[in-house]
């Protein structure tokens, strides 16, 4: 089940070409071009309402681009049919902004459902794997709890365990540390790096936690709601050290270097 395959570092895992996203007539972002490479921890940054979650939804096929395309490796995800998309998504894990655990199932069933549908494990084995995944996020012993019986932060972690159920090679996180206490947030950062190193996974994180962006990000894009494009990109630490874009500087220094008035 090890997902770390022989691909060398630097191969393109996800590519967006001229991606324009809109809700009806309301254009959220236009003509985005970027590449997520193998083993990247790719950060999607931007202010509230700039379209980060929207971009994530496009990348996992929940919204259709108004224009442009998304590629997984060499495969055109936007033009792919249902079956091909499902095959591609089989190796992709997603943690939604609100956790989105299935409320009618226990934590163990939440994870087990994916294993049941995609593997030939028997029920006892499924339960064991589910326990293992839960213990990775510090929720051992909560197998038979329903999502409504645990706290918001715990739901988030359980959502992460579910996202990891099928040993994905690409993992999406929408605001992973929102709602977590500082220690758990820090542990989650470590876990993300650990997942990248141990599974060889490529990780895409939507976040505005500057500490975590600087700690784990290897590449990033900054969505600017005003121009509706990417106004900065690259390793966040280098952006902080070298970028002369006032908006990204203000973002990464949490406004301590305010951008000058327009």
């Amino acid at each position, binding site marked *: 089940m090890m997902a770390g395959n022989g691909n060398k570092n630097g191969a393109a895992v996800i590519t967006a070409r001229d991606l324009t996203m809109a809700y009806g007539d309301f254009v959220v972002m236009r003509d985005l071009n970027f590449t997520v490479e193998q083993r990247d921890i790719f950060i999607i940054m931007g202010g509230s309402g700039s379209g980060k979650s929207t971009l994530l939804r496009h990348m996992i*096929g929940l919204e259709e681009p108004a224009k442009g395309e998304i590629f997984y490796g060499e495969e055109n995800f936007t033009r792919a049919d249902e079956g091909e998309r499902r095959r591609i998504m*089989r190796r992709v894990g997603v943690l*939604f902004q*609100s956790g989105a655990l*299935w*409320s009618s199932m226990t934590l163990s069933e939440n994870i087990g459902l994916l294993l049941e549908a995609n593997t030939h494990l028997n029920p006892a084995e499924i339960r064991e794997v589910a326990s293992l995944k839960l213990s990775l996020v510090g929720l051992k012993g909560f197998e038979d709890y329903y999502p409504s019986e645990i706290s918001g932060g715990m739901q988030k972690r359980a959502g992460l365990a579910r996202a990891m159920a099928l040993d994905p090679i690409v993992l999406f996180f929408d605001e992973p540390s929102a709602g977590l206490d500082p220690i758990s947030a820090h542990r989650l950062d470590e876990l993300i790096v650990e997942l990248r190193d141990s599974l060889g996974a490529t990780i895409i994180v939507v976040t505005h936690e500057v500490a975590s962006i600087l700690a784990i990000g290897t590449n990033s894009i900054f969505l600017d709601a005003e121009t509706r494009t990417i106004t900065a990109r690259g390793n966040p630490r280098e952006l902080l050290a070298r970028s002369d874009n006032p908006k990204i500087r203000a973002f990464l220094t949490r406004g301590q270097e305010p951008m000058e008035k*327009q």
Partner: protein
Amino acid sequence: MAKPAPIQEAATSGTLSFQESDSTLVLRPSGRWSVESGIPSLSEVDRRLGGIRRIAFDTSSLESWDSSLLTFVTKLVELARAQGVDVDRSGLPSGVRRLIDLAEAVPERKDARRKDIDRPLIEDVGVATIKTVEETRSTLAFLGELVLAFGRFFTFRARYRAADLWLFVQEAGAKALPIVTLISFLSGVILSFVGAVQLRMFGGQIYVADLVAIGMTREMGALMTAVIMAGRTGAAFAAQLGTMKVTQEIDAFKAMGFEPMDFLVLPRVIALTAMMPLLTLYANLVGMLGGALIGIGMLDITPAAYYVETTKAITVTYVLLGLFKSLVYGAIIAFFGCLRGMTCGNSASAVGDATTSAVVSSIVVCVVANGIMAVLSYVLNI
């Protein structure tokens, strides 16, 4: 310097006076400005703007202010900008200046503002028409997807949890029995009373048995069960699925390779459609019992006579007709419950709307379907 208005102060309204010198218009708000006494209109200022190049403020006699002054000044700044007039804010209290700076810090996102204020009637009609067409289209699309899902179900390719199906069967079956018992028993009693009053006039009390038997099996059993199930189970389906939409659970299904149609809709539709005829059969029986209670207890019909009359009245055709109707109602209720849930918006109030509209649509469509079937059975002589 003027202070923000204390909250409980009585509203003695603030006033606004003007002074023109050269090309400068000085606005002099004075007294207590409060939202309770309204916001002065800009037309006064607008009229005086001819030849003015600068607006300034003198607030020396302003006693207190609140959002009314802020709103007034913001509107004024917009007006001035449109007419190319400078606004000198230095005369304003510093609190007002700071709040207005704050309000202007993030520029308005022009196309984010909703444009549907003050539409002419003709546009309303057009928008409503387009909405109806779109709704019809999405209903048909949902129907199509449901048919495809059934195709997968019958070729054993649909993926759903057997445990879910079992749960919905209980939910739409056994758990509905108490309320179905109550309502159908009372339906039988009511039919019996209505019939008794009329039939007694020409000594035909015994035909109450016929009326109840035929009424229940052909119409009332299925229809009353449908109304109960629409309010009970159809509404629950819409609320469950709508909530799952809001909490992104449905997105999670899609993103993780499950077809929500197979996984969520199919078991619900199958369970309800399959349980409806059983519930109806039961409702028929209970209804006839209710009728018999009145017939035997109050109309002095002997139990044996009532029984014989009932068996004479019921035919297999009537029972089958009733069961067929219940099957149609079941499909309609499950369809609208799931449709409204799956197309629900992203908020708590949208879930409420989805639930209401699931119940209303399914009852309306059930009654319309009943009308069509009544005409058909008349034409076909059933």
